[in-house]
C-alpha cells in the first residue's frame, strides 16, 4: 500500500509538471485560438538559455538572478517576434495553417537554441535540495519516499497557478485577455488591442515554459529531450480541454498518476514502456465519452 501511494505521489508530482507545460498551451489557445506546438521548444529554449547564461555569468555577483532576468527579457522578445512575424501576417488563416506555423517555430527554436548554446547535456543547479524525504512513516509501513526537489517543484508550480489565476481574474490585462478569448471581433470592437494581448499571452506562456524548463532541467539536466515534454502535455490537454486552466491542472494530475501506475502495474504484462502511449489511450478513451474534454466548453451547433 505504501508503495502504491509512493507511486501515486510520484505520478502526481510528474503530473504537476505536465500541467505546467499544458498551461502554456491553454493560455495561447484561449487567447488566440492557436494550437501552439512550439510550447515544448520554448521550454527547451528557455532552459538552455538560462543554464548557459549562468555559466557565462558565473563570475558576476548574482549569476542566477542575472541569468533569470536576461532569459525573461529574451522570452519577451521572442513573444514580440512571434506576434510580429507569425501571428500578424497570418491573421484570419485557418487554424491548421497556424498550427503548422507553430511547428515551424518549434523547429526554428530547437535549431536556434542548439546552434547558439550547443547541444550537450547541461546540469542545472540552482540550489534545490535533492535529498529524498521520508513522509507518512506513521501511516504506512516503511513510509513514502519522495524526492524533495519534486516537492519543491510541486509547490512552485502550485504557486504559479495561483499567480496566473490572480493575473487573469484581477488585473486589467487579464480581463481583456478573457474577453479576447470569448470573442475576438467583439473584443477588438470595444478597443482591446489584439496584437498587444497576443504579446502578453506569448510572454506569459514563455515564462511558464521557463519555470517548467528550470524544474525539469534541474531534475533531468537541460537537454534536447526537454523539447519532447510537449508531447507529454498533449493528452493532458485533451483530457482537460484546450480552453480550461483548471482542466490543464487536473488533467495533468490524472495523466501523471495514471501513467506511473500503469507502468508499474500494467507495464510488465505487455513488455514495458507503455507510458509512451498510455496517456494518449487514456485520453482518447475518455474523449469518446466527453468529446470536449473535462472542462472544455460545449458548443451547440446553431443552424
Amino acid at each position, binding site marked *: 500500500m505504501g508503495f502504491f501511494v509512493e507511486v501515486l505521489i510520484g505520478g502526481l508530482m510528474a503530473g504537476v509538471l505536465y500541467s505546467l507545460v499544458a498551461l502554456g498551451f491553454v493560455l495561447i489557445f484561449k487567447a488566440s485560438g492557436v494550437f501552439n506546438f512550439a510550447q515544448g521548444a520554448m521550454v527547451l529554449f528557455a532552459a538552455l538559455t538560462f543554464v548557459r547564461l549562468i555559466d557565462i555569468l558565473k563570475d558576476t555577483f548574482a549569476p542566477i538572478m542575472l541569468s533569470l532576468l536576461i532569459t525573461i527579457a529574451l522570452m519577451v522578445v521572442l513573444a514580440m517576434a512571434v506576434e510580429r512575424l507569425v501571428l500578424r501576417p497570418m491573421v484570419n488563416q485557418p487554424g491548421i495553417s497556424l498550427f503548422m506555423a507553430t511547428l515551424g517555430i518549434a523547429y526554428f527554436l530547437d535549431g536556434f537554441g*542548439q546552434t547558439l548554446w550547443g547541444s550537450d547535456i547541461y546540469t542545472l543547479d540552482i540550489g534545490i535540495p535533492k535529498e529524498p524525504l521520508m513522509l507518512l512513516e506513521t501511516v504506512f509501513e516503511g513510509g513514502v519516499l519522495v524526492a524533495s526537489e519534486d516537492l519543491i517543484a510541486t509547490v512552485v508550480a502550485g504557486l504559479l497557478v495561483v499567480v496566473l489565476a490572480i493575473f487573469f481574474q484581477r488585473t486589467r490585462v487579464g480581463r481583456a485577455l478573457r474577453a479576447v478569448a470569448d470573442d475576438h471581433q467583439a473584443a477588438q470592437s470595444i478597443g482591446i488591442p489584439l496584437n498587444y494581448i497576443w504579446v502578453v499571452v506569448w510572454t506569459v506562456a514563455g515564462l511558464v515554459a521557463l519555470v517548467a524548463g528550470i524544474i525539469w532541467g534541474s531534475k533531468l539536466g537541460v537537454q534536447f529531450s526537454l523539447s519532447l515534454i510537449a508531447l507529454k502535455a498533449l493528452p493532458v490537454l485533451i483530457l482537460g480541454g484546450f480552453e480550461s486552466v483548471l482542466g490543464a491542472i487536473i488533467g495533468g494530475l490524472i495523466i501523471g498518476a495514471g501513467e506511473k501506475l500503469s507502468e508499474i502495474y500494467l507495464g510488465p504484462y*505487455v513488455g514495458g514502456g507503455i507510458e509512451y502511449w498510455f496517456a494518449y489511450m487514456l485520453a482518447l478513451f475518455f474523449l469518446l465519452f466527453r468529446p470536449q474534454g473535462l472542462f472544455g466548453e460545449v458548443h451547440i451547433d446553431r443552424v
Partner: protein
Amino acid sequence: MFYRETGQFKTSYQADQAIFPIRQDRIFILIWLLIGFAVIPLVASEYAFRAILIPVTIMGLAALGLNILVGYCGQVSLGTGAFMAVGAYAAYNFMIRVPELNPLFCFVLGGLTATGVGILFGIPSLRIKGFYLAVATLALQFFTDWAFSRIGWFTNYTPSGSIAVQPVEVFGFAFNTPLRKYFLCLTILSIFALVAKNIVRGRIGRAWMATRDMDVAAEIIGIRPMYAKLSAFAVSSFFIGIAGALWAYIYLGSWEPLAFDINVSFSVLFMVIIGGLGSIVGGLMGAAFITLLPLMLNQLPSAMGFEISTALIKHLEIMIFGALIIFFLAVEPLGFARLWQIAKEKLRLWPFPH
C-alpha cells in the same frame, strides 16, 4: 498566355467533366508524364534517384493519402507515420509468413491492413473534431512506435528490432536498381493520383468536401457523417499504408523501429499544407519541396565554402527549415496549389489582369 481556350467548347457532359477539360492542360500533363517516364530516366544520376526522385514519389503518395483526409475531408491527422508503419510492417509480415505471395500483392495487403487500422482509429472522428482529433491521432502514433519496437512478433523477433529486406522481386524481375525502383514508384504514384482524382470528383469526394465545409448541412442533405469520415480514413490510410510499404522496401531497405516516428507524420503534414490542402497536384509539389529543402540546406554551407561541423549544420538546417516553413505559410497559407491556381488564372486571362 498560352491558354487559348476559344473554340474549346463542350458538346457533352462527359467532355465537360473531364479531369482536364482544357486542351492546354492535357498537353501539360502529357509533357510532365513524358518528363517523368522518359526524360528523367535518361538524365538523372544514381544519387538523384536515391536521394530525390524515389523519396519524392513515395512521399508524394503518402501526401496524396493524407490530403484526402485533411484537405478533402477536413479531418486533421498527426498519425501518418503510424499508418506508414502499419503498411510497412504488415507487408513485411505477409511476405515472411506467406513467402509465396507476390510482393506487390503484399504491399496491397499492407495497405489494406492500414485501412483497417485507419477505420478503427477514425471512429473517434465521429465524436471529436479539430485539434482534439489531431491529438487523438497521436495516440496511434505513439502506440505503433511502442508496439513495433516492443512486441517482437512484428519484427519476427529480430534481436535489434531493426529489419533488413531483400530487393523486391516480381515474377523474376528484381527492382534492384535505382532506375527500376523509380519506375515502380512513379507508376504506382501515377495510378493512385488518377484514382484519387476520380474519387474526389465523384459522389464520395463531394461527400468528403461537404463534410469538411459544413458538416451539419451535409448531414441534412443525406450524407452520413460516419460513412464520409470513415471512408476518408479508409482511403487515406490505404494510400499511406502502401506508401509506408514502399518507403520501407524500396527506399530504406532496412529500417529501425523509429523510422516511422512522429517526425514523419509532421513532414507529410508539411507537404500537404505547403503543397495545398485539397489539391492532388499540391501534395506532389509539397512532397518535392519538403524532400528537397533539407537536401539543399545541407549542401548550402559547403557549396558556399564554409567549414562547419555536422552537428552545427544539422541545427542550422532545422532552424532554417522552420523559418522557411513560417515564411511560406505567411506568404501563401494555402500553399503551392493556390499559387499555381493564381498563376493559371492569370495566364488564362492574359493580358488582362482580371
